[in-house]
């Protein structure tokens, strides 16, 4: 009950935030020296057609009214049609968004795993000479952006070792099972083990590139919060109660680091999605990033707007998820 109320309380601020995000998007698209009406039609459109579109889109009205119209359409679920691909934007998103979420989710899981292992290792080494080395290592690791990992992995695992596929989502001669668009889930639901295997293999390299790039911050925060937590009285009290070091670490220290680590992961997820943009492009992975880059190159305004909003929605969803997790994990947050 408290949990639900606390969650509901946090969800209350979502509409204003979304509203602000949409306003931001509207403005940033509007400051572009481009004509939304012209951009919403193929370049072949006649002047009359563009003028008609202007009227229809309300571009002759004041800016606030334009925003209201645009928002109204958005709320009604009308994202328009891609100028360039000539398909409803919703259909494009339906294919691209699950692909990206799947990739980013896997990458985040990997980053969390690596971060956990690395953070514990760093913590175990504290006060020793090896700590300096490990610390320098993480700084160096943190300085290699995800797309460089992607290029490296393609070169090493894809081309030199020929161990892993690095383009697309699925191997040849395999059909994508329909359903949610989450390939791993769909193929499992359809019982198509070959497709699952292939999809998983295709995700290994891009997810690893992203995961490795985003693990070091998690390592650091985990390490730092472990050190903080170990200074806390309740850890000392647990040790004074004679609990074993393992139990102190696993049952008392680690759960108390969840709050900062989860908070970081929520922030990181947004960055990871941004990083996924180029990684998708490099791996010819048909996700939101590839869709957006494509749309930007073709000045495909409806797609640009829709993908940008989809990014917002995904980030917001992740934030809500993390907020829920933090609430579930930390009773103190529920009280406030």
């Amino acid at each position, binding site marked *: 009950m408290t949990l639900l109320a606390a969650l509901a309380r946090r969800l209350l601020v979502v509409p204003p935030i979304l509203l602000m995000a949409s306003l931001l998007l509207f403005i940033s698209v509007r400051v572009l020296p481009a004509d939304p009406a012209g951009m919403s039609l193929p370049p072949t459109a006649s002047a009359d057609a563009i003028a008609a579109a202007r009227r229809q889109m309300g571009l002759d009205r004041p800016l606030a009214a334009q925003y209201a119209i645009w928002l109204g359409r958005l709320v009604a679920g009308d994202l328009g049609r891609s100028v*360039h*691909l000539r398909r409803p934007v919703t259909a494009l998103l339906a294919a691209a968004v699950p692909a990206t979420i799947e990739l980013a989710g896997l990458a985040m899981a990997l980053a969390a795993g690596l971060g956990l292992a690395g953070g514990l290792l760093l913590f175990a080494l504290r006060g020793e000479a090896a700590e300096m080395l490990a610390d320098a290592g993480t700084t160096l690791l943190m300085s290699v952006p995800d797309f460089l990992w992607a290029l490296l992995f393609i070169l090493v695992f894809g081309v030199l070792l*020929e161990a892993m596929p690095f383009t697309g989502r699925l191997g040849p*001669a395999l059909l994508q099972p329909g359903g949610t668009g989450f390939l791993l889930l769909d193929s499992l639901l359809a019982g198509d083990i070959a497709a699952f295997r292939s999809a998983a293999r295709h995700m290994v390299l891009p997810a690893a590139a992203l995961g490795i790039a985003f693990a070091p911050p998690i390592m650091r925060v985990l390490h730092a919060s472990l050190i903080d937590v170990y200074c806390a009285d309740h850890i000392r009290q647990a040790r004074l109660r004679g609990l074993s070091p393992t139990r102190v670490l696993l049952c008392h220290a680690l759960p108390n680091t969840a709050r900062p680590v989860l908070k970081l992961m929520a922030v990181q997820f947004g960055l990871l999605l941004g990083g996924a943009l180029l990684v998708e492009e490099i791996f010819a992975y048909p996700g939101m990033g590839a869709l957006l880059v494509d749309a930007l190159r073709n000045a495909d305004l409806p797609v640009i707007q829709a993908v940008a909003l989809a990014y917002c929605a995904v980030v917001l969803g992740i934030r809500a998820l993390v907020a829920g997790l933090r609430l579930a994990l930390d009773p103190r947050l529920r009280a406030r």
Partner: protein
Amino acid sequence: MAGISRRVLLGVPLAAGLPADAARAWAGGDDGVTIGWPSDVPSWDPNRRFVPDAQPIFKMVYDQPLDQDPRLNLVPSLIARWQLAPDARSLELELRDDVVFHDGTPMRSADLRWTFFGRIAAGHRVDTAHAWRMVSDIETPSATRAIMRFNSPAPTAPAWLAFLGSFVVPRDYMRKVGLAAFGARPVGSGPYRLAEYQPRARIVLERNDSYWGPKPALRRVTVEIMRDTATRAAAVQSGQVDLTISVPVREVERLARMPALAAELNPIARVILLQVRDDGGFADRDIRLAAHHAIDKKALSQAFYGAAAVPLSLPAPPDPQAHPDDFTFASDPNLAIQLLARSGHSAANPARIRMATTKGQFPADYDIARAIVAMWRQVGIAAELEVIDYARYFELNRANRLPEATLYAFDNATGDPEAYGGYLLNPNLPFSPWKDVALGRKATGLFDMADAAERLAGWQALNREAVEIGACIPLLQSVQTLVRRKALAYRPYGNGWVLPQTMEWV
């Protein structure tokens, strides 16, 4: 060029050393192929946009009334026989009676009429509306006979039946489901049917077992869309795709040394050129000519094609028919500087233009564009380079919004000179950024000319004039690069088609 087999059709199967994903294709006798392709189809309506690179994909799902053989001669396809009237104002066609669309309905003359007349008259926004604008009607005396009527002489009509966008679509199905649904579930009569389509990502096609023509050897074709040249090269090297095109020439040389791969460099019936406008920064003829003189075509060929691409002086392939030997356009930066000086420009005060290029569409396109920009900078032309998508090129061209200069490989699958100068320079057609009517009127006159020799001479003169006034800057004959598994045999076409229906594992 050493070590590169040209149009070699043999392949030696390899036994070992391939990863799991790649090994299945040929080792196990599996009958599928994966192709790495640089661009997606613009839409699944084959009449809608003329996109040369989508042609081989369309040719899997749809059939053209006429086909071409590897030497680009016209051969029967859906049409068994055809007869052009001497005045070139009508074309009699006899259709096959055994052709069945993927939905099971037979192909009839009504479908042909719908494709080339009906849907244009119905106002569908299709590019074939331009190509077949002279069709006044198509009579269908029987289910297998049709007579096309033209309101002006159309000597190239048979060639056009085998050219861009000329694919027969099923009238009833299209009417029944509507255009949007047709785009989602296309139905043609071709050797393959569409099994899965992930826009911008991949196309999976299954063999059409009730195909009327020769059965393709391979059951399934997967087309992976890879816009990035480096990705394509890496993918074919690692065995993720069995065949790909338009990889950089340097990569061809490298991949040719790999035992499992065959890499080819095929000159094709395409011309790499700069399409120019007659307004903006290029309104001044001297600047246009200076821009042309400033380009060292030999150096471009040497640097990016290992000298395999022939430098051109006219907008046509190095074919004696259209390309008389007596005309050459000098590469002379000094002359370019003089010409620019006449217009008051120098390296310090450069003429400013914009230029567009594709990236990865044909080998080294972006590199050539940048090299040209650098050459221009030397003489006093400052070009602002913009990268555009292949599909965007067509959109911009149709909307007359291309910049002053655009690097493009103009495709002429027919080999007919009309398709070069006639389309490139005719302001009435949506292919030309050049909008000066004087040249256009001459081109329009040649369209209607029925006499073959006279036509040829006319096109030669027109091409020459176009270059002399700077209406077009031809650069090189295009070279198709293709890398494939040695074991994968295919039939090369003079126009660069790579058709999966001609492929087999050997």
